[in-house]
């Protein structure tokens, strides 16, 4: 039997499968993924040197790592040419070793957050140093959301879902895995998705619909699930309330033991963690739009509806989230076997640098708008456009290529 609805990834192919050299790299990545356990310690390590030397400015190190050092490393190290072969995918995807790394990372993220809370509250720092410490904790909270995303997709694995809730609770963003799975994956690359950005929309405008929109959608989805089971959304079965209780308990204890400095510290660290996710959502589908069929239904999400980056260094740190087309095709596919696709929209840099330029709208627009136009072949009707600048964008860019 054939199905007319099977066009999705039929025309897209993963980049050529690995040869022997690539296969060796894929196997060595096994050890490189320990970076997910080590990276959360970066603020603590820099704090040690700040305490030893008295240079409070070192508390900013993780911020510099994110926006300066990592983009530089990405540029130097370059792209990851390797893709796991089908045989290797079968072998690696069920290897629990990679899951245990995520469990250890979960523990490390809490150690890092509590450790930084201790550091900012037990030593004499200027407010600017404390700000650096809080923002550094925020960067790490953002990385925690990536691990939470990874585990939050493994819905049929209770231990992974529990760890997802725990790690998302670091920044009080426990609703994410519900909203992301059942919301974003359904509505991706449509104007209805609060987690897909529109061309011409600055990140500062995007965040105002993304954060409240995501929470509202998560709550509605969870309430609907609980009502189906005959339960109230105001119960401990609510998977948004569960991680929220972890956050409230931990934050209350830290404030009780470490003092009122925890209020701005935790607020900034959480908010900056959320901001990292906002940047990811802003970058991943900017301007890309799924078309509607004759019945007014959106076409399925296809590889060309996600921006990808195949940079080796940032992919290791971000659990191959940048191989985003494959993620939307196989949402439960574990990070160690996500693949790069041919002929998909490609970002000019890895996420760290793209996050940085997303915060400077004129630079972002100058880099990304031409790429969206090229993707849409000049037809602005095919672009997910911010309605407020629609006329301006049409006037400026609409020039559809006519088939010969």
């Amino acid at each position: 039997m054939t199905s007319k609805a099977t066009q999705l990834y039929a025309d897209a192919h993963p980049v050529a499968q690995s040869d022997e050299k690539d296969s060796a790299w894929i196997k060595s990545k096994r050890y490189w993924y320990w970076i997910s356990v080590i990276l959360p310690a970066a603020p603590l390590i820099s704090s040690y040197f700040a305490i030893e030397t008295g240079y409070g400015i070192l508390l900013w190190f993780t911020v510099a790592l994110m926006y300066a050092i990592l983009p530089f490393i990405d540029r130097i190290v370059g792209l990851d040419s390797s893709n796991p072969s089908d045989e290797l995918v079968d072998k690696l995807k069920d290897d629990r070793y990679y899951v245990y790394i995520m469990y250890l990372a979960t523990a490390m993220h809490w150690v890092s957050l509590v450790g930084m809370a201790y550091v900012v509250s037990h030593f004499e720092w200027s407010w600017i140093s404390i700000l650096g410490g809080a923002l550094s904790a925020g960067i790490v909270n953002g990385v925690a959301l990536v691990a939470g995303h990874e585990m939050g997709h493994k819905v049929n694995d209770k231990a992974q879902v529990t760890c997802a809730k725990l790690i998302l609770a670091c920044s009080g963003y426990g609703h994410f895995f519900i909203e992301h799975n059942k919301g974003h994956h359904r509505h991706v690359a449509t104007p209805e998705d609060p987690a897909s950005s529109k061309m011409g929309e600055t990140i500062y405008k995007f965040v105002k619909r993304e954060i409240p929109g995501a929470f509202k959608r998560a709550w509605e989805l969870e309430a609907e699930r609980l009502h189906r089971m005959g339960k109230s959304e105001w119960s401990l079965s609510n998977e948004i309330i569960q991680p929220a209780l972890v956050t409230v308990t931990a934050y209350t204890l830290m404030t009780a033991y470490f003092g009122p400095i925890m209020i701005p510290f935790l607020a900034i660290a959480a908010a900056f963690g959320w901001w990292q996710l906002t940047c990811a959502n802003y970058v991943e589908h900017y301007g890309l739009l799924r078309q509607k069929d004759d019945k007014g239904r959106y076409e399925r999400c296809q590889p060309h509806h996600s921006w990808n980056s195949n940079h080796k260094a940032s992919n290791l740190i971000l659990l191959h989230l940048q191989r985003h087309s494959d993620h939307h095709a196989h949402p439960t596919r574990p990070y160690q076997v996500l693949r790069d696709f041919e002929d998909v929209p490609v970002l000019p840099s890895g996420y760290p640098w793209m996050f940085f330029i997303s915060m400077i709208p004129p630079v972002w627009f100058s880099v990304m708008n031409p790429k969206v136009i090229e993707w849409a072949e000049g037809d602005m009707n095919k672009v997910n456009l911010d309605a407020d600048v629609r006329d301006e964008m049409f006037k400026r860019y609409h020039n559809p290529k006519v088939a010969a």
Partner: protein
Amino acid sequence: MSNPEYKKYCCVTCDLIYDEEIGFPEEGIPAGTLFEDIPDDWTCPECSASKSDFFLTN
């Protein structure tokens, strides 16, 4: 009366249910189509996840 042999499958990502008894006629999959008979490259109509991301459910 429904055929007790028909099963239901749930998309692990978005919770969409594929009911073999109902099929997905609008997708070209007639009622009564067993899940195993759906082409392997078929994807979830809601979230585009692959067929392998569906699991047997009650």
